[in-house]
Each structure stands twice: as structure tokens, then as C-alpha cells.
């Protein structure tokens, strides 16, 4: 019997249903795990994504032929039974389960295990074959609970208020930025947002997600009228004329890469908060274990090392090369 999913130079392909999952070259029919740029690309004939992921995809990709599906809803595409299950990566992100002739495969896209209170909580999906990312697939990457990081950020914000600097916090516009918003203490002060962040906020608020009040930074916004404010921006705004309006700033990045001192220092920010929407080492291992799968396919990240480890731990694991990018340290929105 042919494998349910195969790996082609266009993306992950299902022959029984004649569709691709997160393809990186234009195809007729694409199932999309989530709206980040390396997973949801433009140019496909037809798209299928979760109802919760759809608004962001339309916002990013414009007028696309997008069909929506609920979490847990089962749908037949050709000879394949397909369903989407929460991946807890960003709001609306899904693992895609594909069943053909009793064989179950799950393509998990990007995922994390911790419940961030904003994305739909991660749901382990039993399967025979599991496709996993490995962005942080090294034992040096382990995350502290979200509440600890929230406390660190609040302390930094308070320190900034004492020293008269504006805290400038950098994060991806989609997902990380909104997660950080829910972690901020709204009693500490006003929250100003860069346009790229606020655009996504609007999309997510419109679909019913609760975010704290924010103020969009426009050319005529006077920072003086928001004393003690924190500014949430994409990292690409750092050091630009846009950022200069806030006077002396204290910069911070929020990313899993901040776990490494070398990366922290390279970004030359005043602070690095270790927080990621990707699973850490223990998260990856527990997720894989819970699927019960014996065959593991490892995509973007430390694929070679992680695969070698899985094989030594008794799985049948293989590296799959894709064009997904994981959590880039730099500013692109993935």
C-alpha cells in the first residue's frame, strides 16, 4: 500500500485525496495548518483551513478561494478522511489528521504544548505516522512556565518606568505579539502598538478573541500623552525613525532563541525573554510519545540531531526536508 502522505518538492502530498499540506510551490488544493508565511503561501488554487485561522489568512493573502473547517470536523477529500486538531501554536493553528484505509497520519505543522490561554489548547492525536517540527529540538531548549515570563516582563516594565525609559518589546506580529498582550499587566500602564501588530490585533478581535486595550501608534500619536507606556512592535521597527519618537528606550525581544546567550547578545537588546510558540525539547518528546506513533518524520529545525535521537530512543524516524523556517531570530513573520 502506498503511504498516505508523501514528501515532494512542492510539499506534503496526499495521493488518495490529491491535496497538499502547507505546500511551498503553487498547487491546486492546499490544506493549511496555520497562517504564518512559511506555511500559508499565496498562489494555490483552493485552500482549506480552520474557521479560526481563516481571517488572518484572508488578511495576509487577500482574496483567496478559502474553505473553512471546524476543529474536529471530519471531511472526506477523495479517498482520504481529513480532520483538523488544535496545535496551540497561534490562534486557529491546527494539526491535520489524514486517514486512508485505516492508516492514520498527522501533519502537525508548528505546535507547542503549553496552554497560552489564547490559542486552542494542544490536543494529542493518536496516529501511526507523525510529522513533527524540530525548531527547538535540542535538550538545551526548555521553557519556563508562561507565568514566570509574564512576571519578568512586568518587572522590566516597572524598572523602565522608574528609570524613565520606554520599554520597546519586539515580537512577531501574528501570534507572539497577541500572546504577549495577554501576558502584560494592563494596570501597569498603557500599551502602544506598532501598525503591523495592531492590524493583526484587529483581525483577531473581530473574530472574538479578547485582547487588552491597545493604542495604535500613528504619525500624530504623542507618546507624552501615554506616560509609563509599553510599546509592542515587530523587531524590524527597532532602531528606525519610527522608534525614535519614544525617546530613550529599553529594548527587549521575546523568542525561544533568547535562551541562548550568544543570540541574545547578537540581537543587542537590553533584555531577552525566553518564550516561544514552538514546543521545547521536553514538549516535542512528550507530544511524539502521546501520539503512539512509531514512524516519525522530522521537519524544520535541528532535524538531523533530533532524528538521530528519536531513532536511538526506539522510533523509526527520518529527516524530511521542507522549506518551513521555524522561529527565525530575525524579524520575518513566521
Amino acid at each position, binding site marked *: 500500500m502506498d503511504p498516505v502522505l508523501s514528501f515532494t518538492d512542492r510539499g506534503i502530498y496526499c495521493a488518495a485525496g490529491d491535496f497538499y499540506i502547507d505546500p511551498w510551490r503553487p498547487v491546486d488544493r492546499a490544506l493549511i495548518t496555520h497562517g504564518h508565511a512559511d506555511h500559508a503561501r499565496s498562489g494555490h488554487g483552493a485552500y482549506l483551513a480552520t474557521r479560526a485561522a481563516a481571517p488572518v489568512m484572508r488578511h495576509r493573502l487577500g482574496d483567496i478561494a478559502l474553505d473553512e473547517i471546524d476543529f474536529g470536523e471530519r471531511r472526506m477529500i477523495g479517498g482520504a478522511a481529513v480532520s483538523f486538531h488544535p496545535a496551540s501554536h497561534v490562534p486557529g493553528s491546527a494539526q491535520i489528521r489524514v486517514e486512508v484505509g485505516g492508516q492514520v497520519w498527522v501533519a502537525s505543522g508548528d505546535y507547542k504544548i503549553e496552554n497560552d490561554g489564547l490559542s486552542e489548547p494542544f490536543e494529542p492525536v493518536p496516529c501511526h505516522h507523525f510529522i513533527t517540527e524540530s525548531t527547538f529540538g535540542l535538550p*538545551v531548549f526548555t521553557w519556563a512556565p508562561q507565568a514566570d515570563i509574564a512576571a519578568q516582563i512586568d518587572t522590566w516594565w516597572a524598572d523602565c518606568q522608574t528609570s524613565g525609559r520606554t520599554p520597546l518589546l519586539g515580537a512577531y506580529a501574528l501570534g507572539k505579539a497577541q500572546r504577549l498582550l495577554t501576558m502584560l499587566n494592563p494596570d501597569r500602564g498603557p500599551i502602544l502598538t506598532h501598525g503591523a501588530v495592531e492590524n493583526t490585533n484587529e483581525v483577531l478581535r473581530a473574530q472574538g478573541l479578547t485582547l487588552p486595550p491597545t493604542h495604535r501608534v500613528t504619525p500624530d500619536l504623542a507618546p507624552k500623552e501615554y506616560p509609563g507606556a509599553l510599546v509592542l512592535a515587530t523587531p524590524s521597527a527597532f532602531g528606525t525613525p519610527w522608534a525614535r519618537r519614544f525617546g530613550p528606550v529599553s529594548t527587549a525581544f521575546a523568542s525561544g532563541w533568547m*535562551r541562548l*546567550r550568544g543570540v541574545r547578545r547578537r540581537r543587542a537588546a*537590553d533584555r531577552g525573554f525566553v518564550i516561544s510558540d514552538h514546543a521545547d525539547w521536553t514538549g516535542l518528546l512528550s507530544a511524539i510519545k502521546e501520539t503512539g506513533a512509531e514512524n516519525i518524520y522530522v521537519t524544520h529545525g*535541528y532535524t538531523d540531531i533530533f532524528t538521530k535521537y528519536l531513532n536511538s530512543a526506539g522510533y523509526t524516524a527520518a529527516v524530511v526536508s521542507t522549506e518551513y523556517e521555524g522561529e527565525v531570530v530575525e524579524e520575518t513573520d513566521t
Partner: protein
Amino acid sequence: MKRFADLFTLIDQTTRTNPKVDALAAYFRDAPDEDKLWCIAIFTGRRPKRAVTTTRLREWAAERAGIPLWLFEESYPIVGDLAETIALILPPPAQRSDQSLSYWITYLREMAAMPEEGRKAAVLDAWDRLQATERFLFNKLITGGFRIGVSQKLMTRALSRASGREEPELAHRLMGDWSPDTISYHDLVEAEDAAADLSRPYPFYLAYALEQPPKDLGAPADWHAEWKWDGIRGQIVLRGGVHHVWSRGEELMTDRFPEFARLTDFIPDNTVLDGEILAWRDGPMGFNALQKRIGRKTVPAKLLKDAPVLLYAYDLLEWDGKDMRAQPFGDRRRILCDLVTPLSDTAPIRLSPEIPFDTWQTIETARLTAREESAEGVMLKRRDSPYLAGRKKGDWWKWKLDPLTVDAVLIYAQQGHGRRANLFTDFTFAVWKGNDLVPFTKAYSGLTDEEFRKITAWVRKNTLQRFGPVRQVRPEHVFEIAFEGIHESPRHKSGIALRFPRMARWRHDKPLAEANSLDDLHQLLDTYG
């Protein structure tokens, strides 16, 4: 240790100087004297004797983390730092402790005398008692290499703020051959009459690079010119009938260069000389010859014969026991000249010759011939300038030759370490030999972040083959490689090695076929090797 860890975190997390000085000064005001002393020692590169080998540390850490050793070894280059890798993979500590920095240093020293089983138990116990940053620092105390952006200047500024003493004086006090065992914090920093230290050098004065032609510097007559030698900057201290040789990095190199023992026969006691240490036989032999000497703490007789060194003296910092640094350079130079010129050829010292010039044009022309003199360029020193401490703009300029360049093809790429863990930054370049591409150099630096990102994306899509962490990529991109020197090297496939190679430019405009050839490199070797 918590106080020291907090200090470390404050210094490490900011790129601004003032908060660093504030944090250090506060530490020097509040911490116990013993901890202060060790703090200075650590940040100036002094550390307790290594109690455990790094091999054992890796094994014990992997074992405690419950991961196979190979996985630890794979993680280490990605993190880029052993102490950090260990701190990151260990499970959280089960015990609590708040002992001082000095306590842990004593702990480490006592460990050194234990049998291996005892050392292992002690290390595991320490890991289980220390929080993440404290653990990292504990590991650093074992492995050494605290590179955390505390320059000597920062240190002296903070000490000055805490002690009320002048910065240059503190800089002088911190140099030399002290260790926390031989001195107290009070004697090192505060005591009115610190024990005179015969070996103590002066802080080096460092030149700024000249970016524009020198005509903006004013009248040529106000300036002194000499070659910028391609050796090791060194300071030779002659006091109490003995000599000490210091490198610019404040490393004592006396044993590495036994030739200078004979200086005491030629130069009077209570003299301190600044100059360039060069491998020399009827003239400077080039840096490659000197390189062989640098790596060795003790020198075999053959090497002493093959690559003898001497000092090209260019400044006089102490004369007859008197600190000369406030005197004008011209006066210092005159005494130096009278001292060195009459000496016999067997003395391991020469005067770094002056390049006479009346017009800036003369010196511009002279500079272009620097390679023929085995020099890297010219130095310009204001005749009335004092000898300052550190890198100061205005009186001393180095005007280096433009680097040599070749256009080469990118053929292998490897991910960076540590700070560049997820970019491809380590590249191997090749030149043509007939229809083949022969690798001849690696290069790591010179591109902008944006370019590194671009080439990283390209490498991901154009990998032909993987050899462990190394990817062979499609030969497609040409880069201009700049370097400071070229010499023969039997260890390299191409037979050639470059000095300080870096990527000067990404030559998008150059087709593959127009990259340089091995013959071109051999021509450069014949001219400059």
C-alpha cells in the same frame, strides 16, 4: 554567588556602558572584600586552577541530564559555550543555597585535591545547589574564558567610582602579576603604598586607524612616522635586575621569548620599553615565522634558531625609574635613540627606524611600499604627545595598507555557533585549477546581517550534499576575499594559507568563470609570501 550572578546578569543584558559601570561600582561598594577581589580577578582573566577536565564535565552533565553524550556534543557547538551548554541542559536544582563567590572558589580549589569520585560528587552537588545563572558562572570558573564585555576601562571606571582613586592609577595597579592569593582587595585597590611590583607594566597606548589621507592632521613637521610592524606588541620591563615581557593582552610572555634575558646586559635597570616583537634574521621575517613562536610556552632549541626574535623598540615609558609617559613623544624618542643606536648587533633590540618626510605625499608613497619592508602600513605619532592609556583618538594613528583580495567561489557552508547559531556563516571558498575548484580558505565575517540571512536562505535550497554539519553547495556565488598576508602551507590542500581572511564583498556582478585561479594565488605568494 547570587550577588555575583545578579551583577553578571546586569552587565550581560545591557549594551550600554553606564548601567554596566553602575552595577560594577555598586558591587565594589557592597560586596565583601574577598568577593570584590575575586570579581576583579575573574573579569581580568585570572581564575582558580582548573579542578576538572572539560571531558569529565561533559560526561557528568550528560549523565545528570539523562541524555546520551553524543547529543550533548551536538548541542555544544550550537550553543557555542561549554559552561552555558551544561547550565542549559541540567534539570532545575533540587536544593537551595546562598553562599558567596569566595565560598565557591574555595569549594573549587578544595575539589582539585580530591580523587575523581570526590570531584564528581562535588560538581554534581554544586549543580544541584545553584540556580541557572549561578551554575553557568560556576562552570565558567572551571572552564575559564569570561568574555562578558567588561573591558579594563569599564573595570577601572567602576573601581574609581567605588574607591575614589584615579582611573589611570587603578589601571596600573590592576596590571602585572598579582593573584587573589598574593594580595588583598585593600592592597590592590585602596592601600596608599601598594607593594611596588617589579613586574608591573604600564597600560598600552593604542593607535586609531586612519581612514582618510593624513593631510588633515596638520603640519608634517609636527609628526613622526615609522613602519607599522607585523609582529606582537610587547612591553619589556627591566627592574630589580630581572626582565618581564608583557603582551598587549596583559599576558606575561617572558618565558616564551628567552632571547630577551640578555637585554639586562645592554639596557640599564629601571627601564621600560614599548615596541614590536618580531621574528628577525637580517630583517623582519614576517608574521608566519613569529606565529610558530606564539603558541608555545616553552621553546625548543631548533625553533629558537629558525625563528629568533628581537624587539623593535619605539617608545620609552620608564627611564631611570621615572615614569616618562607625560613627556613629549619626541623627547622620549631621543633618549630611546641614544640608548639603542650604539648597541652591538648581538643585542636583541633595534630602534624602529623613523621614516623621514617633509610632505604628506612622501608618506603616502612610502606607505605603498610597506609590504616590501615586511610592514603592514605606517604609524603616525604626534611629536609632542604624551603616552596615554588605551585607545585614544588624535595623537597616534595607524595607516594600514589596503588588504590583498581575490575573487573566490563559495563551495561549502556551515551553520554558525552561539550568537549565529541559526545562520550559515562559516564558509569555504575555492579558486579555479583548470576546470576544478580547489578549496583554499575559510571565512566567517565581513557580510552584513542581511547578507547572511540571504545566503542562509540560498544555502538551504542549494545544498548538494551534507557531511555532518557541513553542506556542499552549488558553486554559483563569487565573493571577494580580503586578507592581510599569504604564505605557503603544506597542511592546506591548495598549499597556501591566508592571514585574516574575510568576505569583503558579495560579487553578484561576477560570473563564476571570472573567479581567480590557483595560479593567481601563487603569483601573490611569490610577490608577498
